[in-house]
């Protein structure tokens, strides 16, 4: 069951590469958060109760509900329905996304030959997700899309933690601190500062600070 969930996590990413609609991004992020929660719930017996509640709060309340809801509000307020004019055309994104998945699986194969204790499927999907998140951050122009890329990256990190079963509760709980940044970004965006200062919340406008070589 957890394997199927993990694959759905990955397919969600692939679907993202296909679309340019902000709402799809948000839905995929929320879906991934929920899948992460289910994956953690599966480990109910293995974790101590504090870690368990901590992690389920983080995945269910934070990643699945709060962040997507806030993102949704921002999208509605700023009327950025879709990411127009990305650097790379949509069709290319799908091809790249697929290639990344194949590369991610290849890396996983290599890693799991050396360390068989790694859970290959979530590891592979986490690595692929990570690369695609970078791709989105680098190739998409709107600030809100970049924040979503950051959210994807965090989801990938969470999946990676589950995949590697690192038995360090300290570290697992530390990972949650990454969310503080998300909150900060959302705060900045939600304040509408970036929106009111720039006509459109686009990275393209953020180029007044630049040097020519």
């Amino acid at each position, binding site marked *: 069951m957890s394997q199927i969930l993990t*694959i759905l996590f990955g*397919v969600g990413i*692939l679907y993202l590469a296909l679309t340019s609609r902000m709402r799809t991004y948000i839905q995929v992020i929320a879906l991934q958060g929920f899948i992460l929660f289910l994956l953690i719930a599966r480990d109910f017996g293995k974790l101590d109760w504090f870690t368990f509640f901590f992690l389920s709060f983080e995945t269910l309340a934070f990643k699945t509900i709060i962040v997507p809801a806030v993102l949704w509000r921002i999208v509605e307020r700023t009327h950025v329905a879709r990411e127009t004019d990305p650097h790379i055309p949509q069709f290319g994104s799908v091809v790249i996304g*697929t290639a990344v998945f194949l590369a991610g*699986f290849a890396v*996983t*194969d290599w890693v799991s030959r050396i360390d068989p204790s790694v859970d290959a499927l979530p590891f592979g999907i986490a690595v692929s997700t990570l690369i695609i998140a970078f791709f989105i951050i680098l190739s998409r122009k709107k600030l809100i899309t970049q924040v979503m890329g950051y959210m994807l990256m965090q989801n990938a990190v969470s999946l990676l933690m589950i995949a590697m079963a690192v038995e360090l509760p300290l570290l697992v709980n530390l990972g949650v601190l990454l969310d503080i940044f998300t909150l900060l970004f959302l705060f900045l965006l939600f304040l509408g500062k970036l929106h009111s200062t720039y006509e459109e919340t686009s990275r393209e406008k953020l180029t007044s600070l630049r040097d020519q070589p």
Partner: protein
Amino acid sequence: MTARALNVLFLLIIPFLMAGVINRVKALAGGRKGPPLLQPFFDTLKLLRKGAVVSRVTSWVFAVAPALVLAATATALLLAPGVGRVQTIAFDGDIVLCLYLLGLAKFFQLISALDTGSAFEGMGASREALFSVIVEPSLFLFAGTLALVSGTTSFGGLFTLVGSGAWPAVAATTGTLLFFMLMLTEGCRIPVDDPNTHLELTMIHEVMILDNSGPDLAFLQYAAALKMYLFALLIAALVLPVDIAPFQAAVVLPLVALLCALLAGIVESLVARFRISHVPQFLFLTVALALIALAAAVYFRGGAV
């Protein structure tokens, strides 16, 4: 023997039921009561009783195409794994024949549309041809992957997802998604095509059969429903357990098919049709899924995983 008889029986009923379920779901979602579940069946019977009007500019191709399309599709379905994964006709390499029969049906549908000499139908045919170019590789790639893993080229053994580790789960998930997307595409359902539209410019399948009438139209519509049923069968073969009892399979199989129809209806109610230029991207996703399955077969099948 019973399984084969059931296969044929289901072939005659379930495709109509699936079409009925989709229409009913859409009607309910739209706040209407909707036609009876067997309305497509009654429509077909009605059409079969009527005579056909044939345009004077058409040749023999137009006349034989509907029958050929139906025959090829129905034969393909007899090769597909049915109740308890039993095929009505089985031999080594039947999967290739099945896929090519589908290709043959498509070919005749295309040239019969072109045969009418109408600009609209030619346009529909060209779109259908474009989408097939993407659909066929994904289907062949996925089937090839399954064949690679199972070591057989017969549908019967293909879907016993053997192997350790993550491979069976990957294959089941990606395969189900892939077949569902292909079901929507080949069955001319909404994100790709709109069976209800009355604007020839946006149609694909419906515009291709615009000139057909009477029994010919019934044949083509039945063939389209059969294709949806084919993909439902493939999904069922993927997700149902290998060791399912025959009588259980006989009950569960129609349920899976109707569930697929239900989902298709929900998708149709929720999703808007894609722009034509957007469809190839959607279809490429099926290729991506097949590629992922292939990668999983290559990497996740060994004992190490």
